[in-house]
């Protein structure tokens, strides 16, 4: 009946339709967020985010690997030879010239000093996960005396920098700090 009348006032009806549409869109978008955010790490996972490692028993030339956030973190007490080798490398020779160290400036160069612990150049702390596709490199192996990833042949040097193979970046250094001379808190 009298359908033509419904178009007599197009502006008001169009306005209402738009408003309703906007409400619907905002509503759906706001509901979507909790359903997406629930996939992020939950409170118990976040609470486990930092660990302490005791390195009092770590002799020169030894490494220990601990689990941090579900990933292996290696702490290596490097030998003098390894430190020398790390320092001898020129920046131009590096595949990835960025330090990848969460404790220094994000754009810092990948010098040996920027990779190792502050004031303790013998200590190297890294997430031991190959930056190629996530395998775990082997300690003290490869052409550069550092780490070698058996999956796809990436080679890291004694400062954990990528030198050869498909991996694009140096092994990342996580946030850490010495809580005492022999204890490191990671995370």
């Amino acid at each position, binding site marked *: *009946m009298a359908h033509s009348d419904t178009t007599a006032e197009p502006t008001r009806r169009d306005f209402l339709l738009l408003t*309703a549409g906007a409400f619907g869109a905002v509503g759906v978008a706001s509901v979507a967020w*909790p*359903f997406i*955010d*629930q*996939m*992020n790490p*939950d*409170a*118990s*996972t976040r609470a486990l985010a930092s660990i302490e490692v005791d390195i009092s028993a770590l002799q020169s030339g030894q490494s220990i690997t601990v689990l941090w956030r579900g990933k292996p973190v290696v702490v290596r007490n490097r030998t003098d030879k390894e430190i020398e080798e790390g320092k001898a490398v020129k920046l131009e020779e590096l595949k990835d010239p960025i330090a990848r160290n969460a404790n220094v400036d994000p754009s810092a160069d990948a010098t040996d000093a920027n990779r190792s612990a502050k004031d303790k150049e013998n200590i190297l702390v890294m997430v031991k996960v190959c930056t190629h596709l996530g395998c775990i490199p082997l300690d003290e192996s490869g052409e550069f005396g550092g780490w070698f990833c058996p999956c796809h042949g990436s080679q890291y040097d004694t400062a954990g920098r990528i030198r050869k193979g498909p991996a694009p970046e140096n092994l990342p250094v996580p946030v850490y700090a010495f809580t005492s001379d022999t204890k490191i808190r990671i995370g």
Partner: protein
Amino acid sequence: MSGHSTYEPKSGIEKWLEKRLPIVRLLHDAGVSYPTPRNLNPLWTFGGILAMMLVIQIVSGIVLAMHYASNSALAFDSVEGIMRDVNWGWLIRYIHANGASMFFIAVYIHILRGLYYGSYKEPRELLWVLGVIIYLLMMAAGFMGYVLPWGQMSFWGATVITNFFTAIPVIGQPIQTLLIGGFAVDNATLNRFFSLHYLVPFIIAGVVVLHIWALHVVGQNNPLGIDVKSEKDTVPFTPYATSKDGLFMVLFLVFYAWFVFYQPNYLGHPDNYTPANPLVTPAHIVPEWYYLPFYAILRAITFNIGPIDSKLGGVLAMFGSIAVTAFLPWLDTSKVRSGRFRPLFRIAFWLFVAAVLFLGYLGSQPADGNAVLYAQVCTAYYFAFFLIILPVLGFIEKPKALPNSIIEDVLAKSKH
């Protein structure tokens, strides 16, 4: 679906699709040009509301399954992990738990609407039977979902319900053992319930498609219960029905949100916040509110009927009370659909509603004293309504005069 399609493909992509997969035509015919009776009242919006609830339950359920552990040692704590630690977990779980109740509230309104306006009568018999199947599947999904938090009510609810099968002579016990995968409800039971709880909603979705298909073939009933006679009786689905559906969906969400945010545990049972303990039965075992009328029917059969003992009798009565609804289209002998023109049916209908509500209340109370007697009276009425009153009424009732057409009735009223 029904009648000829008014859809004209316009854009290039529509024309391309039209030759290969005419899905735009399907959506247009079902959701835009589909003719709906112009006199539908808000009770007709509950179909849309139910579709919305199914989507909400499936989405929130899939998300909960990402954090839930279906192992009897971990289930309770994993649910508490969702409530405490998962981002927004409390919100999503309350949406899902209360969503089940909202789903049932909506489905009961939907069913009673169909019952009152005779929506099950020729040619909508199959539509109704598909609805009964959906309802049965919903009950299965709701029951198995309630077991998953593995609280006291979960455990004892599962124990009591699976014990229904032991009422069957000879093969009952082996069937029950098979169903629960052990000699008592345990880890095996929980695991299979989780698997099936995840599956059933998708079966529901499938039957819903058939339900809607059948609806679009026969068209909607309406409050007058008379057939659509001409195009004047109808309006296109969009924008008329969509604007109404949208409004009542949002109003329903207001009601739903009230429970999620202000009464999240009102419809649950406090005992389910105590972990399952096979050594202690709670003082009163009560199912979820939506099963209470049937639970009362189960407990109402306290006497042996010939060779059938009271245990089997109760189980048969309970399942029978749902099964009988599937035969409703053939039990109601009246030619008139809508209760509006059936004075006697109307009384019988509201007594039926009162009996079911009262059964629900009795189901929540301890079964002692007069409660059993009341439940027996109501149960008797429940079955009499379907098996005696509806068949007989068709012959003795004198219906009021039906209007000639929907449009005539609508215009006559709009003059006042």
